[in-house]
């Protein structure tokens, strides 16, 4: 397998997407004329200054927000239809665990809703708890966990079932370098194994470059895409790929894009 892997039809296609929030002190143009095509099996990172519309764009894809203009299709359907087909696994920016459920109970939630058999539920909970290094914390309540542990629980929850499209909003923001590296690797493995399409918001340039087949750089007020970088890195990525010149070159381009976005306002 190699770089540009736009196998088949686009999974996500946005054209001239606009979203304006009406607020008490005037409209906020959160997304402006966003064009983007994501192919099946791609790993797309979104990077951009705080408030540039990354979350909003992810929410549009997941049909949690309704664009005020332009078109957006997911697997050729409207996002809402795709949502009804349970196409998404979504990791929110805040952990958003239900306080009245234990960690295991929280992870079980989507499984219960999707009607997995009970034994299978247990097995999956065990597996993902292990994956995010929370073995033994299943019976705790969310408020008994540290911030980073909560975030990992929320990642586990999204990985517990097999959605075709995984949308992750800064999933590793509250984790230390070492856990982060480990989870990055796990995520890549999962991606390689399952061929999921992944949308991933991050603030870490190395992380974006390390993980993605495509990096989308955004800039704020109004939120729009300023650069789309197709990564020439191979699909197989050991951690030390981060020291290669290609890697550093892409990282540089991303940083420049980001800086440009900042200088804008």
């Amino acid at each position, binding site marked *: 397998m190699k770089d540009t892997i736009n196998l088949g039809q686009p999974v996500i296609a946005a054209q001239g997407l606009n979203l304006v929030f009406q607020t008490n002190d005037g409209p906020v143009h959160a997304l402006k004329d966003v064009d983007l095509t994501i192919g099946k099996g791609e790993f797309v990172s979104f990077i951009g200054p705080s408030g540039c519309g990354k979350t909003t764009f992810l*929410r549009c894809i*997941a*049909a*949690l927000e309704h664009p005020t203009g332009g078109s957006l299709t997911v697997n050729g359907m409207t996002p809402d239809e795709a*949502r*009804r*087909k*349970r196409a*998404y*696994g*979504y990791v*929110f920016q*805040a952990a*958003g665990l*239900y*306080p*009245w*459920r*234990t960690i295991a109970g929280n992870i079980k*939630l*989507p499984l*219960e*809703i*999707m009607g997995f058999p009970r034994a299978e539920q247990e097995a999956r909970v065990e597996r993902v708890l292990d994956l995010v290094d929370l073995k033994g914390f299943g019976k705790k*309540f969310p*408020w008994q966990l540290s911030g980073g542990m909560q975030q990992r629980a929320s990642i586990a929850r999204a990985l517990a079932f097999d959605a075709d499209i995984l949308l992750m909003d800064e999933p590793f923001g509250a984790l230390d370098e070492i856990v982060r590296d480990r989870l990055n690797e796990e995520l890549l493995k999962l991606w390689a194994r399952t061929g999921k399409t992944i949308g991933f918001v991050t603030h870490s340039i190395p992380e974006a470059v390390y993980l993605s087949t495509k990096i989308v750089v955004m800039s704020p007020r109004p939120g729009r895409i300023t650069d789309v970088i197709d990564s020439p890195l191979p699909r197989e990525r050991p951690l030390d790929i981060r020291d290669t010149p290609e890697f550093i070159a892409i990282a540089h381009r991303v940083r420049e894009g980001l800086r440009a976005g900042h200088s804008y306002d």
Partner: protein
Amino acid sequence: MNRVLPILTVVAAIVVLWYGAAVAMNRAWVLDQAARAGTEPPAFGQMVVATMTQERPVLPAPHQVVAELWKGVAGQAITSKRSLVYHGWITLSATLLGFAIGTAAGIALAVGIVHNRAMDMSVLPWAIASQTIPILAIAPMFIVVMNSMGVQGLVPKAIISAYLSFFPVVVGMVKGLRAPDAMQLDLLRTYNAGGAAVLGKLRLPASMPYLFASLKVGAAAALVGAIVGELPTGAVAGLGARLLSGSYYGQTIQIWAALFAAAIVAAGLVAVIGLVERVTLRRMGMAR
């Protein structure tokens, strides 16, 4: 001890205030009687005694009420018509049935209102209007109608009781079921959870604090409803009948005893709900 001491202190404070008030409020009658008899008003000591031994005091002294309560509870067989336990049970049974119906109806309506736009717009205004109708005005008509349909005894009372208790439950639960925040709802949307799942896995658990507040108010309302429902049935038995006959014969002490009996029943119900609340919240990891 830790739990009892504060209650005792508060109760003691109330009792002291109460005795003071009893002296102040019952004084007028003693003075009037003295004036009518043409004698000098009694000295302070005698006055205090006189204010606490009246048969029809404006405010009976605590010990008078307690004595009457004791007479009503322990002084007779609990099957006797003079036993407060007997009357309390009659009222309690109607209350419990009414509370069960009211709570079920209230929750069902709230669920409907939250899940269905048409119900959202049409039910609440009428639920509100229904509550502004003075029950005591329509209860007789209602009982007559039920009677002619052959429904008698516990059920009509329970229905009036349910009618009063469903409303706090509706109001509280509508708010409670809407309490989950946007992100919690969004999460379920990404799973394409159906209405039942949203209800069972998010809205209901999130509404628990509201539910218990509503249940406490609802239980109290159910008791009031049961008592009010006893009146137009000829007030034959139950705490309401006791209250009314006490009032009819001007037996203030009997009224107070029945009032206390009702209050004890209510406090008992509320305490039970409070207990269930604590256990539930603890199991939900919410009691911190």
